């Protein structure tokens, strides 16, 4: 999820991914963890390597990866809406029809 979110802003190689994720999520992914996740995401066809330096190969989202990220974001938003409604946090509710606001 973190890697897909980072790549939604454009292709990145390993080091740039780790830095970006650290900045927007405050999560430090170690090299082993990062490449374990990259391996599985690439095997599942959610990301792909682009042409470039063999040692710092950038990755980008595939169409399947973009759809998977959009689906997860929608699910999380729905869950957040339920939580906000039950807590009475009206300011956090989207208000807009979900289909229009969260279509990929």
């Amino acid at each position, binding site marked *: 999820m973190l890697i897909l979110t980072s790549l939604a802003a454009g292709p990145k190689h390993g080091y740039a991914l780790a830095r970006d994720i650290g900045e927007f999520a405050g999560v430090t992914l*170690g*090299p*082993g*963890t990062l*490449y*374990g996740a990259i*391996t599985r995401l690439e095997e599942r066809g959610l990301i792909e390597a682009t042409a470039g330096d063999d*040692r710092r190969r950038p990755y980008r989202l595939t169409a399947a990866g973009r759809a998977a990220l959009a689906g997860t974001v929608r699910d999380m938003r729905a869950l957040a809406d339920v939580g906000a409604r039950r807590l009475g946090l009206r300011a956090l509710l989207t208000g807009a029809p979900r289909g229009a606001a969260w279509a990929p």
Partner: protein
Amino acid sequence: MGAVRGRADRLLRWYPATWRSRYGEELTALLEDTYGDGRVPVGQRLSLAGRGLHERARRSALIAGDGDPARRARSGSLVVLCSWPAFVIAGGAFAKYAEHWDAATPPSARWLPAAAYDVVVAGAVAGATVVALGALVALPAFVSFLRAGRWRELRAAVAVAVALTALSVTATVGAVLWAHGQSTVQRNTTSVLGLGLGGAFALCLVATLAAWCTAVVAAVGRLELSGRSLQVEGALAVALLGAMAAVTAGTVTWWAALATSAPRVLSDNLLGSWGPGLAPVLVGAGLLMTAGLSAATVGVVRVVRALPSLTP
């Protein structure tokens, strides 16, 4: 960056070769970018080692994953096959222990242990036959694999197994020649040297079986097996579990029958005794069989769950 590269190369050895060839350079570059000329922290080194081992396990045909039913069926059958050597070792120990048991047992107490012993033998023969049939089913795919020029992928694993087999055969021939040069009394006298050599011989046989098991897992994981072949292998895995259950039941029954009706057969055994009816060899064999049977059951459950989703 040379020092970092050297350290990265050492850390990458935890990962399988195919993974290294795909991601190794990238991971090395990431380590260089992240840590520069400094040392990789101990926590990250441990993490890399753990991830590397995890990657090895994930790529082994023994691990099923949660998706492809063909992969699950194959891994289940392999788990059952890899459980069989436990029975080969335990069965060998049992056969050695049970030598001449009937001569030392009163005729009136023989029928039940005799029947149990026959079940053990029948189970062992059935199991060996099932394993041979499984190899035959996989043979065409193995031939295709060799014709595709992929032998070198298995060369190292098979070379280790062949070397250990040669060592085991040499040790067996040596042991037989030594035994024939001894009198009956000398042969049956326990000595530290004899126990040490016997232990080393047993370890050699275990290492040989483990090496062949590793080679078979490496080979089967690379074969292009059709859905039909996997279905047959799955059925054979279920049959092999049945053979293992028969061997275990026969051994336990033989043991219990003799412990009840002729305990001296067990307590006077040259391979040792911990008390009436409690022999270390039988305890070890029983534990091995239990472990093998448990692992094989896990494999069969995996096969049975995957088979309905398999297309021939």
